C-alpha cells in the first residue's frame, strides 16, 4: 500500500462538500457576505452560511432580542434576551464555524453600513422585515454594484428574489401606490421616523427555515457562478399549503431611480475617525456628499436652536421634542458638508459616517472616496470570491 492512499478524512471538516463536483470550498473561505437583518430569517441564513464554511460574514441589525424571537431564531436563547441581535448572531456563527470571521454591526442599514463594505462584499442577503429597510438596502447594493437576495416570509408561503446591478428589475421597480403610501406613513411631516409599534406579522420557524435554506442555496449558486438559479429580477414564491412553487420575471421600471453603480476609480482615504470633510476637500472649494441626511440642528419655536450632528434615520420623533418646553423641534438637515460649515473640520466619524463608507467629493475635481475602517484590511485589494473574482 502506498503512502499516497493514506488519508485522514475525519480531520477534514468539509470532506463531504469536496465530494460535490462543482463545490469550491476555497472560494467560500474567501467569500465576504453581508446578512442584513438578524431576525428569524437572518438566523437561518447565518447558520447555513457558517455551516457551509463562508469565510467572512457581516451581520447587521439595530434591534435587541425579545422573548417572542426565541420560537423562530435558531441562534438565540433565553439568556440572550435584551442583547443585540447582530452581536449574539455573530457569536453563534463563530461557535458553529470557529474559522469564520463574523463581524457584528449593531446599527441601522441606512447609516451604519458603509457603502464600501457592500461594494467589497460578494453578495448581500436581505433578511428584512419592512419596505423601508428593503428600500435602503436596495439602494446601497445597486450603488455598490453588488447582487442582493431578498427573502420574505408569510404563514404558509415565502419568497426569494434576486436583484442585481447587472440587469433586471430591482426592488424599487416594484413599488406600488400602496407601498409608497405606507412608506410615507413611516415618517412624520418633519421627516423623522415614527417607531413601529404595530403587532408583528405571524410567521413560524418553518417558513424561516425553508426560506433561509433557499436563500443560501441561491447564494451558493451565485458565488460559484452556477447556472440554474434565479436570474436577476426574478422572484421565487413557494406556497406550502397547497405545495406550489412559481418563478416569475418582475417588471423593470425604466424610470426607476435606484439603478446606477458608483463608477471606478474610487480613491482611498483614512478611516472616518481620522479624516474630515476639509481634509478631503484640501485647498479646493467644494462639498462632501455624505450619502445620507445629517441633522445639523433642531429648531425649537420657543427655545431656539440646538446644534447637533446625527444621521436623520437615527433621530426619532420623540427625541426631537424640546427637553425644556416640550415643543416639537424642526430638524435642519443636509447631505453635503461644505468648507464653510463648522462641521467641516470635524472627523467624519463624529458625523455618523461609518467605517468603509464611500463619500462623493464635489469640487473642481469630483471624485468618490472610500474611507478605511476596522472591518476590512486597509489594502483595497481584498480577495473577493465568486461573482467579483478578478474585478479588482
Amino acid at each position, binding site marked *: 500500500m502506498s503512502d499516497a492512499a493514506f488519508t485522514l478524512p475525519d480531520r477534514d471538516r468539509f470532506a463531504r462538500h469536496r465530494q460535490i463536483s462543482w463545490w469550491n470550498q476555497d472560494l467560500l473561505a474567501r467569500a465576504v457576505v453581508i446578512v442584513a437583518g438578524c431576525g428569524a430569517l437572518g438566523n437561518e441564513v447565518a447558520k447555513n452560511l457558517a455551516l457551509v464554511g463562508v469565510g467572512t460574514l457581516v451581520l447587521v441589525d439595530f434591534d435587541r432580542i425579545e422573548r417572542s424571537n426565541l420560537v423562530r431564531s435558531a441562534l438565540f436563547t433565553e439568556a440572550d434576551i435584551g442583547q443585540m441581535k447582530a452581536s449574539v448572531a455573530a457569536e453563534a456563527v463563530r461557535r458553529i464555524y470557529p474559522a469564520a470571521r463574523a463581524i457584528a454591526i449593531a446599527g441601522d442599514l441606512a447609516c451604519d453600513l458603509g457603502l464600501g463594505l457592500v461594494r467589497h462584499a460578494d453578495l448581500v442577503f436581505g433578511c428584512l422585515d419592512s419596505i423601508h429597510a428593503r428600500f435602503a438596502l436596495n439602494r446601497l447594493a445597486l450603488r455598490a454594484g453588488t447582487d442582493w437576495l431578498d427573502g420574505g416570509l408569510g404563514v404558509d408561503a*415565502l419568497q426569494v428574489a434576486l436583484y442585481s446591478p447587472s440587469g433586471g428589475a430591482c426592488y424599487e421597480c416594484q413599488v406600488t*401606490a400602496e*407601498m409608497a403610501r*405606507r412608506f410615507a406613513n413611516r415618517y412624520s411631516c418633519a421627516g423623522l421616523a415614527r417607531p413601529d*409599534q*404595530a403587532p*408583528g406579522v405571524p410567521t413560524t420557524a418553518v417558513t424561516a427555515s425553508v426560506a433561509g435554506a433557499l436563500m443560501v442555496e441561491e447564494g451558493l449558486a451565485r458565488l460559484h457562478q452556477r447556472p440554474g438559479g434565479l436570474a436577476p429580477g426574478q422572484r421565487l414564491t413557494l406556497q406550502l399549503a397547497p405545495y406550489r412553487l412559481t418563478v416569475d420575471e418582475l*417588471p423593470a421600471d425604466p424610470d426607476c431611480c435606484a439603478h446606477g453603480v458608483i463608477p471606478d476609480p474610487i480613491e482611498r482615504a483614512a478611516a472616518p475617525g481620522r479624516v474630515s470633510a476639509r481634509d478631503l476637500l484640501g485647498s479646493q472649494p467644494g462639498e462632501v456628499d455624505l450619502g445620507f441626511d445629517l441633522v445639523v440642528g433642531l429648531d425649537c419655536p420657543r427655545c431656539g436652536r440646538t446644534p447637533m450632528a446625527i444621521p436623520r434615520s437615527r433621530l426619532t420623533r420623540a427625541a426631537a421634542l424640546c427637553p425644556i418646553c416640550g415643543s416639537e423641534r424642526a430638524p435642519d438637515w443636509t447631505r453635503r458638508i461644505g468648507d464653510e460649515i463648522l462641521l467641516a473640520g470635524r472627523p467624519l466619524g463624529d458625523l455618523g459616517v461609518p467605517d468603509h463608507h464611500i463619500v462623493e467629493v464635489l469640487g473642481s475635481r469630483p471624485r468618490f472616496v472610500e474611507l478605511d475602517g476596522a472591518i476590512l484590511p486597509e489594502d483595497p485589494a481584498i480577495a473577493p470570491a465568486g461573482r467579483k473574482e478578478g474585478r479588482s
Partner: protein
Amino acid sequence: MSDDTLTLTLRTLDKSRHAQVTLPVDYTVEELIEASRHNWALPRDTDYVLRSERLGRQLGARDALGSAGVATGDILEVVPLLEAGTRPLDARTAHGR
C-alpha cells in the same frame, strides 16, 4: 365576446378565492388588484402584485391588461408581497401618535 374585453380567471395564490371576470382591455393591473382587495376583503396592510400563469411573469402595476400581454382565457393570480417581521404603521394609527 367583444375585442374590447377579456374574460379571465382571477384567483389568489393559495387558490382559496377565484372568480371568472370579464374586463375591458384598458383596465389596469393596479385597478384589478384593488378590486380583488375589495371583493375578497384581502388584508389592507399587505401589498399585492398580479402574476400571469401563462406568461410566467409579474404584470406591471400601471400597465393595462391588454398591453401587458394578457389574453382571454388567461389565469391571473393575486400574490402577496411577503415582508415578515414588524407590520408598518396603519395611517389612522400614525396620526394618533
